[in-house]
């Protein structure tokens, strides 16, 4: 399958999934708390997540979060598209000191570890997928500053990453549409809520956080890479 066909399949899949999701979400009459005090009172029992904010944006208001991810994807697409079209510069890479390179070899694994922690424990402690993704992208930026953009890009192919970003969005949409196949309202949570405070609690929030972290990591990195390529080097 050529590149254009893969892109077309992904684009059609994402748009179709969104259309079906919005149509089914509006057709449903799932009760949502009328004011914010009810969120505090009911969220723990209904979502199973100790982190009330995660409970709101990944359970009650999941549709908002999905559309927010779509906005993010469109921004990444736009930045890459317009920067590829413009002329760009070819500034030489600045050679970095050995001190920076050594520091980065300590800091970047720590950033990735922090990303994993925020994504996995986002429903029971401060954190979440968005913060985790940005932290991981910052960790990769350290590597790119210390070792150069070209060296980093030989390991991470931007085209494949862009494809993976869209595929994760499609996977997320497919995941939230699964309940419709069982005759339930889309976006409803099929997984058990578990004991609040435990790692395996909060239903699907853990899965959403991990997928969102991956998506934001790749998306933020693609934006950074597009700006760096346009300049020539970091």
């Amino acid at each position, binding site marked *: 399958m050529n590149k254009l066909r893969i892109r077309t399949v992904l684009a059609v899949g994402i748009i179709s999934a969104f259309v079906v999701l919005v149509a089914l979400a509006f057709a449903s009459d799932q009760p949502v708390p009328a004011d*914010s005090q009810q*969120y*505090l009172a009911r*969220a*723990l029992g209904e979502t199973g997540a*100790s*982190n*009330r*904010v995660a*409970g*709101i*944006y990944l359970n009650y*208001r999941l549709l*908002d*979060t999905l559309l*927010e*991810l779509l*906005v*993010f994807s*469109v*921004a*990444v697409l*736009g*930045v890459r598209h*317009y*920067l590829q079209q*413009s*002329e760009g510069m070819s500034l030489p890479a600045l050679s970095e000191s050995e001190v920076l390179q050594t520091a980065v070899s300590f800091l970047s694994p720590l950033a990735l570890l922090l990303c994993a922690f925020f994504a996995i424990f986002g429903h*029971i*402690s*401060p954190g*979440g997928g*968005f913060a985790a993704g940005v932290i991981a992208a910052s960790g990769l930026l350290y590597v790119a500053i210390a070792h150069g953009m070209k060296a980093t890009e030989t390991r991470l192919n931007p085209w494949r990453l862009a494809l993976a970003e869209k595929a994760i969005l499609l996977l997320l949409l497919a995941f939230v549409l699964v309940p419709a196949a069982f005759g339930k309202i889309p976006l409803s949570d099929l997984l058990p809520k578990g004991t*609040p*405070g435990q790692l395996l609690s909060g239903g699907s929030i853990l899965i959403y956080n991990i997928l969102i972290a991956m998506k934001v990591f790749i998306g933020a990195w693609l*934006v950074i890479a597009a*700006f760096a390529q*346009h300049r020539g080097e970091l």
Partner: protein
Amino acid sequence: MAAIVAFILFGLGILVLVLRRDLVIKLLALGLVNAASILFLVSIGDRPGARAPIQGPGEMGILADPLPQALVLSAIVVNFAILALALVFVMILVERYHSTDSTRIEQEMAREIDEEETPCL
């Protein structure tokens, strides 16, 4: 207090956005306006003696309102998207007109349009 600071920052951002002609400064001001909005939203969710809204079953204490915090998350992501795209458009304009001055860019664009509309003799 945080709400007052948010209003001051918001006003400052709007003033810079309107008065300064440099496009990059305008983008920074837009970022400031967004940060002020986020600060305001988070501040309205606060209550005296409230903790962050993370609490397991059986734990007692007053919690901050989680709803504005959940909305702020969307605001941050949308702000990132807008700033990244706007920065790309500014870069394209700078490459074409070799200036970040919005008035000068507008004059150059108007001149180009006039030249296109004037028939060659």
